[in-house]
Structure formats: C-alpha cells, structure tokens
C-alpha cells in the first residue's frame, strides 16, 4: 500500500494541468463507472467504506455493551464469544469501543477534509481567477504550509491551541487546504483560457457566474479525488498524534485506543490489534477508492 505524499501529488497534478496535459474530459463520469467494473480494489474500497460508515452510524444497534461501561470482574480478557475482541484494563468491551471509536475516527477523517476542501477550493479559485497580489499572497502561504513536515505542523498547532477534538479539526485543516488550493488554482488558470470561457464572456456572462458555472464544475472530478485521499491521510495523522500523546485524551478514537493499549501490548495484543486493524482497513479502503478515481480521471494512467 502506498501512502501518498499530498505535496508531491498535488505538485505533479498542478504541473500537468498547467502544461495542458489534462483537459476537461466530458467522459469522466462514464470512465469512473467503467473503472469500478474493472478495478476490483476500488470497488472493494467503496464497499468497505460503506460498511464502515454503516457500522459507525448504527453502532448502538450492533453491540449490546456501552463503550464506557466498566466491568471490573472481567478485565484484560482475551477474545471470546462474550467479548469478541476481548476486554481492556477497565473491563470495557473492545469490540464495542472499536465500533464507537469508528464514529470519532471517521469524523476526524471527514470534517477536516471537508473544511480543507471548501477552504482550498475557495482560495485556489480566488488565486487563479483574481491573479496578481491575491494569487501571490495565497500561494506563498500554501507553499509555506506544504514546505513544513505536516505532522510537525499539526503537532505545533495542537500544542498551541490545546488538545481537544475541535483543535484537531483545525490542525488537520491547516495542513490539508494548501494542496487542494494548489490544484484548484492550476485548474482555474488552465480553464480560464478555454474557448468556452471566452464564449461566455463574449455573451456578457459575469465574472463570478463564469467562476461558479464553468470553472468550478470542471474542477469537480479532481476535487473528489483529493477529498477521497485526504480522508485516510487525516485519520493517519490523528492516529499518529494520539499515539504521540497530543490528541484529544477524551475522544476515544482508534488512534487513542492503540496508544492506551500499547502498555499492555505484550500481555493483551488484542488491545492494539483491534483498533490498529480498523485503522488499516479504513485507510486502505479510502486509498483504493482514491487511487481508482484518480486513474479514472487521469488520462495518462489509463490503460
């Protein structure tokens, strides 16, 4: 499994767009549908994601335990019919905690990715469309963000703002918007030279109508790919930070579970195996889907 460097990916993508290698391709939705038929990994990813999301949404229906219910009579028990993934040092059911932890980990995947999608798109569009000073300021800022090691930057933000889940959203949004902005800017620069934009101008269509009706819709396929790849990245960042102790200590994400289980790893491996595998499967599923979508919209990776 390859973990994508967003900096590298967005840089290559932007360069290709600017070099006009990637044209707006009207057949995108068709080729995505085709991709799912051919690319089994992407389809598997999509199904897995659907299952994981359903599991998180319907968590209380899936398990009969409460995630915070302690049972001091059964602490650190290995997996059994009673406790599928065993219990932890407080006698809490690990399966239940993984199911409920999915809510938090998915939220940590989705929310900052959505924020950086909106923010990155708005800023990238402004930079590419308005040019000059606006472009300079926004893109220099993006370069600075992308030049920093992401994990370090996010940790600095968490240290500064404090360890809670809201600040986690902020930290992850800060490290993620820049790549999106870079791609949207490149695409905007290329699209605004297109003849259909010139045609719209010749008919008296206003600047911002052109931006929203022509440029944005043509950026959409790339944005979907970026969003899909941002989610697993955010889940990984959060897990790493929780493991390193700068996560929200009260938000029982999978990352925090691994971190709390690591002291018992030798005696009770299920404490880290269960949430660890949950992270692995989720991240893999999103990456499979994102890779498939990217291949489908990138004419140069199509076979």
């Amino acid at each position, binding site marked *: 499994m390859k973990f994508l460097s967003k900096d590298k990916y967005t840089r290559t993508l932007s360069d290709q767009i600017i070099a006009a290698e990637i044209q707006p391709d009207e057949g995108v939705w068709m080729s995505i549908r085709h991709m799912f038929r051919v690319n089994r990994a992407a389809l598997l990813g999509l199904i897995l994601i659907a299952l994981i999301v359903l599991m998180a949404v319907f968590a209380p229906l899936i398990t009969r335990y409460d995630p915070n219910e302690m049972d001091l009579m059964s602490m650190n028990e290995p997996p059994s019919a009673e406790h599928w993934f065993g219990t932890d040092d407080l006698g809490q059911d690990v399966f239940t905690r993984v199911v409920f932890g999915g809510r938090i980990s998915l939220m940590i995947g989705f929310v900052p990715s959505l924020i950086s999608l909106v923010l990155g798109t708005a800023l990238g569009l402004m930079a590419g469309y308005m040019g000059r000073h606006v472009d300079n300021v926004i893109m220099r800022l993006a370069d600075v963000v992308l030049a920093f090691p992401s994990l370090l930057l996010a940790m600095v933000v968490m240290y500064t703002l404090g360890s809670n889940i809201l600040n986690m959203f902020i930290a992850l949004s800060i490290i993620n918007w820049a790549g999106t902005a870079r791609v949207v800017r490149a695409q905007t620069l290329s699209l605004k030279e297109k003849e*259909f934009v*010139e045609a719209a101008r010749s*008919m008296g269509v206003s600047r911002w109508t052109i931006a929203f009706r022509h440029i944005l819709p043509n950026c959409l396929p790339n944005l979907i790919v970026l969003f899909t790849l941002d989610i697993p990245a955010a889940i990984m960042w959060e897990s790493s930070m929780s493991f390193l102790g700068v996560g929200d200590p009260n938000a029982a994400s999978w990352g925090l579970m691994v971190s709390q289980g690591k002291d018992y790893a030798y005696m009770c491996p299920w404490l880290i195996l269960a949430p660890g595998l949950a992270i692995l499967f989720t991240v893999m599923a999103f990456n499979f889907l994102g890779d498939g979508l990217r291949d489908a919209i990138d004419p140069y990776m199509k076979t």
Partner: protein
Amino acid sequence: MSELLRAEHLVKEFPVKGGVVHAVSDVSFAIQEGETLGLVGESGCGKSTLGKLVLDLIPLTSGKVFFDGRDLSALRGEELRALRRGMQMIFQDPYASLDPRMSVGRIIMEPLNAHHIGASRAERADMVRVLMEQVGLRPEFYSRYPHQFSGGQRQRIGIARALALNPRLIICDEPVSALDVSIQAQILNLLSDLQRQRGLTYLFISHDLNVVRYLSDRVMVMSLGQLCETAPTEALYAAPRHPYTRFLLDAVPQPDPSRRNEERALLTGEVSSPVNPPSGCRFHLRCPFADERCAAEKPELKDLGDGRFCACHHPLGV
C-alpha cells in the same frame, strides 16, 4: 444600407519575451448592415485577434470601434453590455467552445440568463427549444451533453447560442474549418439561411478562400496584422490587385487543369514574423515586384475605385 460597424485604426500588440507581437497593426474597415464581409489570411495573421478586438473581448492597444454609430470605448457598465448584446461570435473549435459539463439546453440558455431575458426559466427553456429548431437541432436533445454530438451538430449549438440574444452582427471565426468538408456546406447553408431570415450582418473569418467566396459580399485580405486588399468578392477573385492576394489564390488547388501550369512563383521564401516585422512593405523581402520604395515606405490602403482598396505601391493590372 447603413453602416453597422466601423473599426478605426485598430492596433493590438502582445508583449512577449524578446519583443512585441504586432498581431493587428492599424486596421480600419466598415461593415454595412446586412452584408457579409469576408476576412481571409494565413494562420497566425491576426484574424481572430481582430475579431476579438471588435467584440471588446480583449483590450485594444489603440483604435476605436463604433457599433451602430456609438463608440464602444466611450461606454461603461450596463450601457456597454446592452450595446454588446448586438454583437455575438461563433467560434472556430466546436469542441473547445462548449463547456463539457453543461447540457445543450443550459449552454444555449446561458446568454438569456446573463441578460435576464424571459420572465421565467420555463419561458427561457421554450425560447431555447425554438432556437434549437431554427438551427436544425431536435429539441428533444435539450438535456444531452456536448460530447454526445458530432462536430457539425456542436457547431449548430454554438450558432443557436450566438442567435439567442438576437444580435445584429455575428463574427464567425472560422466556423467550419474544424469540420469535414461534407458537413461544411450544411453549416454554410444554415448561416446563409439565417442571414436571410433575420437580416444578419456577418464578419466571416476564414483561411479558406473557397469558403469565404461562398458567403461574402466583400472580402478583406489580411497578412501579418495588416490589410492588403479589400474588394467586392467576384472582382477580387477574378483579378487580384495585391501580390499577396494573387499568391493566396494561386495556392488554392486549381480545379481547371488548363490553368495549372501557369506561373505560381509569387512570394517565395520565409514568411516574415509578426514579432519585429520588416520596415516598409512587409512583403518587400519576398515580393518579385519590390523596389527601393517598397523597402523604405509603408504602402497605405489606397482607393482604386469600384469599391477596391489595395495597400501596395505597384498594384497588379493597373
């Protein structure tokens, strides 16, 4: 006939690395209401640039455009928009000029939306269907996307869009050069029918002399950003006055075999570049009639009578 468009001393220079592209240098002309003025010239001579200058799509370096007697550069805001509604453009590339993410109906409706025409969306949709019918597209195709159409059909979409605002002048920038020859005639006939029905005025741009001849009342010949010759169509094709026009006509495949062996050696050698063009007449380095005067003095467009104008010190056949 009254004058619909007048262009006075249009100049467009593009600054580029290592110099300035003189895309359009001091071009003046007028178009009468209801006529078709052809504009021919080789690729890169500035035809599209000239069309865009007339439409105010790109800013002029200098010069003035009058539409319906009013100076475009003197107008601002809503007034300018209202006047510009009367001029529309049909683009060369039927693929690049339609947004791949918009349905045909939305593409044709876009100008109606921009100018708030029609009381409701339903009314605008009806107008779009009428337009589709007028250009020979089936109104059932309203919700289809451009990639589901052939090149010729796409160009019809572009024509319907240009007609939507009921313009008086349409600038046709090589509307058929991207199409198969068999389709070209259909589109040219459509343009000609529409002109008759609606009393349209065309500025018809092409590098293909046969296409220009088919539609135009008068023809302007352009090279390296300047006009060489303007004349009524048949007179121009029968007896070109400018050596460059003669060269262009000779380069067209000659259907009459008895004329194929005629001397065609006019204008040999390198085409001069629009970046830092030569002094005097821009052809003097490769024109067989060139003399010292041609090298020193730039020929102005002179009236030769019978509606003919020619920018040459030694016009042919005079």
